[in-house]
């Protein structure tokens, strides 16, 4: 039963990937834009800045002003990668050293707390609640459950079934909901780097006084 579900999880992951690729195809079907204006700066440097220095709290004001949310977001997303690792571990039957497993468990636990705190913040903060739609709550809650079940599955095989079912639901939901930003985040950030890099805004040309 668990083994069959494991195959289904792999199929679900493949479906999710295919659906995301289809979304990418649909996105590009709207047409690519050619830049006609002559560049003033480097797109490579712009993209690097957009992904690395431009995400740091001392560079990005919105991150610096909201440090708890910023760090909760980082930990949350790092934990999601850990949970996918755990899922792959279960499905493939590969085992890891205890120290590595302990590290993953720690990551998952902290990540689950961070995810729940972001959900609470969304519910409790008036303006945030007003800009949120059902998808925002559902996506967060689904991922939180996935994190918790992943964590428990490392202690007891009894949690394998709930983990696989949660994973299946999540893989089905990712392309439909806002979790698809797992793809669009990287592309949007890349585009921002290109935009401001060509214009010589990224990276900033001098140190601030």
């Amino acid at each position, binding site marked *: 039963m668990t083994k069959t579900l494991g195959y289904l999880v792999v199929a679900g992951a493949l479906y999710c990937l295919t659906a995301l690729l289809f979304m990418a195809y649909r996105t590009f079907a709207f047409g690519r834009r050619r830049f006609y204006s002559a560049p003033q700066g480097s797109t490579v440097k712009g993209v690097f800045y957009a992904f690395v220095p431009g995400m740091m709290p001392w560079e990005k004001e919105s991150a610096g002003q909201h440090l708890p949310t910023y760090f909760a977001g980082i930990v949350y997303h790092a934990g999601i990668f850990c949970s996918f690792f755990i899922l792959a571990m279960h499905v493939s039957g590969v085992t890891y050293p205890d120290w590595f497993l302990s590290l993953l468990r720690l990551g998952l636990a902290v990540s689950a707390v961070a995810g729940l705190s972001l959900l609470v913040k969304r519910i409790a903060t008036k303006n945030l609640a007003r800009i949120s739609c059902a998808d925002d709550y559902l996506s967060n809650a689904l991922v939180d459950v996935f994190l918790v079940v992943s964590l428990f599955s490392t202690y007891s095989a009894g949690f394998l079934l709930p983990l696989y079912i949660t994973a299946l639901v999540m893989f089905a939901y990712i392309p439909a909901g806002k979790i698809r930003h797992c793809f669009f985040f990287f592309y949007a950030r890349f585009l921002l780097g290109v935009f401001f890099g060509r214009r010589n805004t990224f990276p900033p*040309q001098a140190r601030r006084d």
Partner: protein
Amino acid sequence: MESATFTRNSEINERLNQLTQADLDKVVETFKNKLDHEYTAYLNACVHCGLCADSCHYYLANQEFESIPAYKLALVTKVFKKYFTLGGKWLPSLSGAKSFDRKMAEAWVDSLFGRCSLCGRCSINCTIGINIPYLIRIARSALQSVRLVPPGLQSTVDTAMAKGNNMGIPREGWLDTVQWIEEELRDELQDASAVLPIDQANAIHFYTVNPREPMFFPLSIQAIGKIFHAAKESWTMSSENFDLTNYGLYNGDDAAAGEMSDRLVRALKKLGCKTLVLGECGHGFNSNRWEANQWLKKEYDFEVKSILQLVAGYIRDGRITLDPAKNKKTVTLHDPCNLVRLGGIMEDQRYILRHAVSDFVEMTPNREKNFCCGGGGGQLAMTCFSDRRVNAGRIKAEQIRATGARIVATPCHNCVDQLGELNKHYKLGVEIKTVCELVADAMVP
């Protein structure tokens, strides 16, 4: 969807009430035609984290929910999802997808025209990196397709299209003004050879101005004449096409915007000039340096430069000599969003001011992180939103006050106007000058 608070302009309200289903469909169709893979990727990417709120001067000033950039963007993404995503079509309540109806049209006009100066500060602070002002601009384009544009902004575009410049200055009036300023320049320099050349064939630089200069700020043109004369520059202005402004950037009318920019290109070509030089105007720089090529879908075989780049070069090359002691008062610099964050011209103005004034202090934050003064995005032309504009300018006013400066320099005439209004409203007690005016004041004969 939140109910819009836009009830101030009877002309717009009348237009909203007249909207037919065909008009609403046309907005969606125009919006679709403006989409490309970049915009579509951005529209799929917002996670509603809300961290953009504190980056917007409108929200900081009025703390109104409708001023949060994520809300403004959501108005656009709701419509996008409804018509262009499977999830939005099949299960709209999940993602908040909404049809474009009269209520949505009202909300778009209120928020996308009335609560945004397209300054781009939210973009660099966006967790994802969504280019929010460009999405708002294509939504403005869609509204423009059914003439749902605040009248002051639309009439500015209409005047520019009909009369060749956005203030409707007739050719004779322009030439008379230039002649008068030229005489003033000769008197000031005590040099009969000082000229403000018009239609000089094969001059290297084709210089363009904001029509507010001949109308209200002739000293700006005189300052440029003084600098070019001292640098022994080869330059000219056009008797017909001198207006570098382009409010098509703001009302979203790409065809009109392209035509306005192309007039400058045609005039430059006709005179055989090598460089299009843009005077001190932020949106004019963004329009003609970056956007015009996209509107016209062509590459240029000539350079497009800001006057600041030329003047900084003159100082570096020793073609003009400045004495900073001639400008003793403390000077701070306001960075126009379209020139700096969206235009990439950050250091030339600083280099110039460090040579032209004896006490230069920066605002905090500055450069690409600067706050908009509130005058961009066509706000100065949209009188129906004047109260909001002045209120949103409070953030800039506080920045200025904190520097203790007596002079605010800015290389943009729209910013000069807004800062002048903020100066009076918030009793800042400062002088507002352009960068080139300070250079002219500091020049050593």
